[in-house]
């Protein structure tokens, strides 16, 4: 069986040297979460009432929406993933960092890049390629800042004092290695020195798929794999299979993107390969669900804030993979309809955000020494679930109806707009609920940072690395 490790290594030795930078990453991530959710909510309402704030260029739907998506991806999910990832690396490897000055500087530059990028989109200098809308200056700053951050991630891994590597560390290593490669390739070929248009479609869709499965999802899954044995207080179920899941996911992840161009102007084999990859993703997803939900399920889960968020995040991950695998069955109806917007909502809010919230509820009390009141966490959870569920159900149902209208040659285009309208109103309500959840979380986080909550009962003396068995 696995090493049920209850090491009494001073818990704060490793990650204490990272305290300032992790708090910086998390607090600025939460700031961008609120900004992104606000812009996202604004965009959703503008879809319902097109004349709402339509007098100014910087508030037009076509700029607000990419600004929101980029703020959420680079400002929130990436940054929270980086902060939590570095914290996990220090904790799992029991690595102490000499000085975190460079890391803090790099974090500030990352935020400068996001700020510049969001402003460039709103100001009308956006690049109109999904996930790469930031101006070339902003994406360049992001990449430079990232290199400094990523190097620290690798140093933390290399200098670990514990032997062996946990699967959380595998995922973090994959993410930290893939992102610069991914981001540099996409920017080089699409933004800084664009290839000709005929090649841009497949490269852009490769980037969207890879950004999710080789960067954002590994960051979130690293946190999930770390949390699950902590929550369940027993080792991960079927732990060896997590290795197979890891390799399947990282191999298939890069291939999933091009199905976004199903039927489009790219060679058919690129789409077929991507559809096959999407179906094969069921293998790692099943294994990951067995590892995580299998460990947490079937018995009384402790009532700690990280548990519901993690479970909900993994459940959304499973639905995301199922939707991807179902693409060839339903894409004639769902492609280009609000259904695909629903898929995005589930990825960014349901899967990534909820998993990151769970990890944040674990890490923040250990960084500040103060616990969140369980009522706040519980209210935040149910508000988030309400928001995500409303958005997802509205977009999925509305998208199916709109999709049938878009598909049927006998129905004119305007019918698809009027059929989708009531569902879009419901979706806009959902974005408002989710925005409320984000603001609540930001307020609770700020209060925790500023010392508003009561101290943790036994700071730093909890069981550290239960069941994350050595590989």
């Amino acid at each position, binding site marked *: 069986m696995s090493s049920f490790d209850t090491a009494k290594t001073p818990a704060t030795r490793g990650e204490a040297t990272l305290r300032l930078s992790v708090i910086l990453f998390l607090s600025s991530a939460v700031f961008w979460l609120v900004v992104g959710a606000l812009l996202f909510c604004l965009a959703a309402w503008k879809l319902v009432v097109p004349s709402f704030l339509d007098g100014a260029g910087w508030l037009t739907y076509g*700029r607000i929406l990419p600004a929101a998506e980029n703020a959420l991806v680079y400002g929130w999910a990436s940054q929270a993933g980086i902060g939590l990832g570095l914290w996990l690396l220090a904790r799992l490897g029991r690595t102490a960092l000499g000085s975190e000055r460079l890391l803090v500087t790099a974090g500030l530059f990352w935020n400068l890049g996001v700020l510049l990028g969001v402003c460039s989109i709103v100001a009308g200098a956006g690049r109109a390629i999904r996930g790469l809308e930031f101006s070339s200056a902003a994406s360049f700053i992001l990449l430079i800042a990232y290199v400094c951050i990523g190097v620290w991630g690798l140093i933390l891994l290399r200098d670990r004092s514990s032997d062996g590597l946990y699967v959380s560390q595998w995922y973090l290593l994959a993410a930290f290695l893939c992102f610069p490669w991914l981001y540099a390739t996409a920017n080089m070929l699409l933004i800084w020195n664009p290839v000709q248009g005929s090649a841009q479609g497949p490269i852009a869709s490769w980037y969207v798929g890879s950004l999710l499965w080789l960067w954002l999802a590994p960051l979130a899954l690293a946190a999930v794999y770390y949390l699950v044995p902590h929550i369940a207080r027993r080792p991960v179920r079927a732990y060896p299979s997590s290795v197979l899941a890891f390799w399947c996911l990282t191999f298939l992840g890069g291939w999933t993107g091009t199905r976004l161009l199903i039927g489009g102007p790219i060679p058919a084999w690129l789409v077929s390969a991507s559809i096959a990859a999407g179906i094969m993703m069921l293998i790692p997803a099943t294994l990951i669900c067995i590892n995580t939900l299998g460990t947490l399920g079937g018995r009384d889960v402790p009532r700690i804030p990280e548990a519901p968020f993690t479970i909900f995040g993994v459940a959304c991950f499973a639905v995301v993979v199922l939707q991807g695998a179902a693409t060839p069955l339903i894409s004639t109806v769902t492609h280009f309809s609000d259904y695909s917007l629903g898929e995005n909502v589930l990825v960014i809010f349901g899967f990534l955000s909820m998993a990151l919230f769970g990890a944040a509820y674990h890490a923040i009390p250990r960084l500040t020494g103060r616990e969140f009141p369980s009522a706040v966490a519980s209210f935040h959870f149910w508000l988030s679930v309400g928001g995500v569920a409303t958005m997802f159900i509205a977009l999925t149902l509305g998208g199916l109806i709109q999709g049938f209208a878009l598909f049927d040659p006998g129905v004119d285009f305007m019918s698809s707009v009027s059929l989708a309208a009531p569902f879009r109103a419901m979706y806009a309500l959902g974005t408002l609920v989710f925005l409320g959840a984000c603001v609540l979380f930001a307020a609770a986080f700020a209060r925790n940072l500023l010392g508003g909550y009561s101290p943790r009962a036994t700071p730093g003396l909890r069981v550290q690395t239960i069941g994350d068995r050595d590989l």
Partner: protein
Amino acid sequence: MSKLPPLVFGIFLVFTSAWFGIVGYSYLQLGRMQPVVDENSGDINPPPLSGLAAAGQRVYAANGCVSCHTQQVRSGAFSTDVEKKLGPRPTVARDYLRERPAFLGNLRIGPDLTNVGLRFTDANWFHRHLYEPTAVVPGSNMPSYRYLYQNRKIVGQPSAGALAGLNGAHAPRPGYEVVPSEDARVLVAYLLSLKRDYPLPEAEPLQ
């Protein structure tokens, strides 16, 4: 596997598979596509963009038109795009040769614009539609782009480029006129240029 180097090497291998397969292939094959000369007419296809249309492409990008409008007519196996008369033929990679960037899009919140220059040929119609979408297309959920226009007092003669036929809530009062900015003019030039009806060897227009 408890050491870093083999893990790093493994990650390198799995990453390169899609990197070579998708990015490398696209860059080397699709990225080197050439325009073709039509043997019958002597035209170069796809035709080069005018300077105005190229500038309009940047306005199209800046205002995020691609958030709601696709520019691709999909082939028959996956869609009814051709039956729905989005264009005379499915679009192929070569159609996007001159696009910077290629506005393929991912949602049809608004209609596909691949061939919008074939459906509408009147510049004033485009200007009116951008200025007051709901007055032109009842029930439209397109926002107004009147920030690309100037509503100003007529001094002397009315301007030649002023919009005709405005009747929505933001129509000019008597003695005023709405004139397109440079951005609006080039954007409409770009939209008028969107016609993928020329023949390509890999995609003949359907009769």
